């Protein structure tokens, strides 16, 4: 059964590898958005350090959102999705593989780059580690929840904007716990509670989201 998971994962990773520009665009978007805030607000190091956690987390959130339609939209248009849906393999497992591929190609590069941006915002080394760690633990939840929205908005009018309206409110707990972890580390407090909560969010979405995405795909393919 896991064979199909890896078959889908391999295919999607290969597709992403052959179109590296798409993933690179998402990374560039993240860098640009994150560098707008010092220009718009205040480049003073103390002020920057204060809003770094929130700004960086929101930038990651938006970059993740921007890449979400790609999870299913292309397969939907060229008919690959209907072939996937009539396969005898469990759909939720296939869907999980697609979400995993999306996270690896679209979000992981951003997470890996985030400490660099954190340095530009004057975070200390401990803050950088907490930032990267919170993103590493939090962003898979974003991909899983976003997958539900991406599936539901297939073929709907106003896809991209609608997707944001559906998904962003669901992202709020992850944003609070993730950015909160970095804030807590700056204040010299422990971050264990934040990380536990991020982990709980991930486990919950890992169990429930593939099922919801599969149900959503069955509905929109009708």
């Amino acid at each position, binding site marked *: 059964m896991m064979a199909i998971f890896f078959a889908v994962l391999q295919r999607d990773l290969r597709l992403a590898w052959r179109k590296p520009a798409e993933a690179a665009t998402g990374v560039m978007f993240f860098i640009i958005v994150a560098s707008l805030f010092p220009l718009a607000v205040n480049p003073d190091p103390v002020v920057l350090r204060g809003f770094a956690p929130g700004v960086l987390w929101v930038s990651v959130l938006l970059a993740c959102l921007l890449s979400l339609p790609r999870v299913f939209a292309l397969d939907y248009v060229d008919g690959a999705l209907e072939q996937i849906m009539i396969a005898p393999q469990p759909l939720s497992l296939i869907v999980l593989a697609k979400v995993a591929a999306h996270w690896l190609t679209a979000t992981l590069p951003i997470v890996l780059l985030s400490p660099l941006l954190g340095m530009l915002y004057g975070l200390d080394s401990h803050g950088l580690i907490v930032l990267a760690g919170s993103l590493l633990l939090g962003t898979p939840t974003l991909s899983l929840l976003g997958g539900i929205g991406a599936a539901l908005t297939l*073929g*709907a009018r106003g896809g991209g904007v609608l997707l944001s309206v559906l998904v*962003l*409110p*669901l992202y709020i707990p992850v944003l*609070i716990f993730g950015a909160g972890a970095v804030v807590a580390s700056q204040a010299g407090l422990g971050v264990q509670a934040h990380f536990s909560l991020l982990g709980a969010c991930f486990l919950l979405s890992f169990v429930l989201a593939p099922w919801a995405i599969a149900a959503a795909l069955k509905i929109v393919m*009708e």
Partner: protein
Amino acid sequence: MTGINWFKYAAPQTFFHLSGKWIPVLGWIAFFLAIAGLYIGFFIAPTDFQQGEAYRIIFIHVPAAWMSMVIYLAMAFWAAIGLVFNTRLSAMMALALAPTGALFTALALITGSFWGKPTWGTWWVWDARLTSELILLFLYVGFIALHASIDNPQRADRAAAIIAIVGALNVPIIYFSVQWWNTLHQGASINVASAPKMAVTMLIGMLVMTLASWAYSVAVALFRVRCIILERERHAAWVNDLKEVKS
């Protein structure tokens, strides 16, 4: 086993006629209860010694906030029933409840800020309850927007049901996270809902207003379901035989 065929009431035609009888009753109940509740709230209930007259907005704010949450859960419940049992009427109920729920959420936000101005000196404070209400409004908007953007009514019902269920599962997590965030950042602030040592008359006023809101919500939702039934079943023979349609 009683032998009543409950599914009989789930047929849109039966429901249409039954609900037609109930709407005026519920409407009048809502009207009189609201009059009574407002009278108690604005004339009988004593002035609060801390907050003066401004606190009286809670007679609208608190019922509205309660309704906003209850209606979201009811909406998700009907949506789930519609998704699982494929009953047309349940999905229509969910769709009909959404605008009322969004309305109460907006009302709770607006009255909350009216209360905030004299009490906190500003229209908006990132208080945990107000922030949660704001996010709840976003969830309602998402449900309505998704339903509106899919042309096929059955597919729209089913897709919107998924987001309603996901939203309902998320509501407790969102509330917890916002509460948590709030205590970390601000410490305890006075909450709109927790007027200390509430007098009995205040409680009665709030209760009456809540009952009025319930009656209003059910009446309006039923009314909207009737509109949706007419729209979706416009080709059915029984709709064309209605005397309202014929004239």
